[in-house]
């Protein structure tokens, strides 16, 4: 038995037997791991609200040889999504982070950059400002998974798209110039294209100061979510909810 302590974000939980839970943790050092939290539903002393998805915790767990599931002994909350007001949209954005990471992260493979991205978006995902962190996360995670080409050039001919019209298609990666778009392509608005380029140059803290109402950069959000879904090769339940809520 090897005892560990790790910084982690709770991704998801599933009930197991009467009062136990299986917990998926995204740890900083070891990537995604799964563990069993015994009596988690009842033992407030050990887990309290720490197993709520998207809680940033310091987890203590024990690894048993030849066993896939670790034994989760305790979780100390470093930052909880419940320490700020919650509404349906914020809950849906947080659930989107959970669903995407649970599905895309490989087991036992540290992903330090993704981990830092997650902490950053969690800090800024607020009731007043849910759409920007969502778009920021969706674009970045697609890039970090290696699925998103350079958005400053046409993926077909590499001509720079800055100051020019950029087009996208729900079945293709990246952006296209006016010459290489075909039927069924949509134009990404100038504001959205500029924002997309800034997302990859700026920390999220630089973007939160701007107002980002629901109807800002809807096309960019749609582009980001579609890119992610297409490359994940599945429809995300939370993306459907977010489309309903935000267009």
């Amino acid at each position, binding site marked *: 038995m090897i005892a560990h302590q790790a910084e982690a974000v709770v991704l998801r939980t599933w009930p197991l037997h009467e009062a136990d839970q299986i917990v998926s943790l995204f740890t900083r050092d070891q990537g995604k791991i799964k563990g069993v939290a015994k009596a988690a539903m009842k033992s407030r002393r050990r887990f309290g*609200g720490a*197993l*709520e998805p998207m809680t940033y915790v310091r987890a203590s767990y024990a690894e048993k040889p030849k066993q896939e599931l670790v034994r989760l002994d305790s979780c100390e909350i470093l930052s909880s999504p419940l320490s700020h007001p919650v*509404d349906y949209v*914020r*809950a849906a954005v*947080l659930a989107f982070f959970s*669903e995407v990471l649970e599905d895309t992260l490989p087991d036992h493979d540290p992903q330090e950059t993704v981990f830092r991205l997650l902490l950053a978006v969690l800090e800024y995902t607020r009731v007043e400002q849910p759409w920007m962190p969502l778009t920021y996360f969706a674009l970045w995670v697609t890039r970090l998974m290696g699925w998103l080409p350079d958005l400053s050039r046409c993926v077909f001919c590499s001509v720079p798209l800055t100051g020019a019209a950029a087009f996208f298609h729900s079945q293709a990666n990246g952006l296209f110039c006016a010459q290489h778009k075909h039927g069924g392509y949509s134009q990404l608005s100038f504001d959205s294209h500029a924002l997309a380029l800034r997302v990859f140059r700026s920390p999220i803290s630089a973007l939160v100061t701007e107002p980002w109402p629901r109807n800002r950069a809807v096309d960019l959000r749609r582009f980001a979510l579609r890119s992610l879904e297409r490359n994940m090769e599945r429809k995300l*339940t939370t993306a459907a909810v977010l489309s309903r809520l935000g267009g």
Partner: protein
Amino acid sequence: MSRFAEPMSRLIEELKKLPGIGAKNAQRLAFHILRSSADDARALADAVRELKEKLRLCSICNNITDVDPCVYCASPTRNQRLVCVVEEPTNISSVEKTRSYNGVYHVLHGTLSPLHGVGPEDLRIGNLLLRVQASEVDEVILATNPTVEGEATAVYLADLLRSAQVKITRIATGVPAGSDIEYADEVTMARAMEGRHEV
């Protein structure tokens, strides 16, 4: 081909559908039923059948009941103008344990759950709105769980009810954040109810 006779494998298949029952346990239970007396086996079958035939949802509050309206909604000694909104029928007993609540209930049968694709249209909200709009209610206590989904549901309902002439309160966080009120002890739950605040 199954290694059991047809009636046996049929029972095993049905038992396996129950939560927490795997193939091994299903076999054990099936053999136990086979060995038990005909009366015991019939009593079990009747209990299962009657559960589905006799139990339904209360048309006023959605609680599970064998009489409609349920005992709470039909009670002349309970304050029918005070409504406590809970996620599941099992949550009612947590509030009842406090022995200090004398109002009635409304059961949503779920929470908004983006991860499971559960939206407002999947919750039982309609008859609560009707009650409130008909001015039959003075106060709605939102006692959904102190989780992200429970909070989101409470805020959603508060917004929905805001236009009506009704006091809307949320239970205090005496119930630890992220937990399930089903497991809150009676003292914690009583404090949460007493400390409720207007939203």
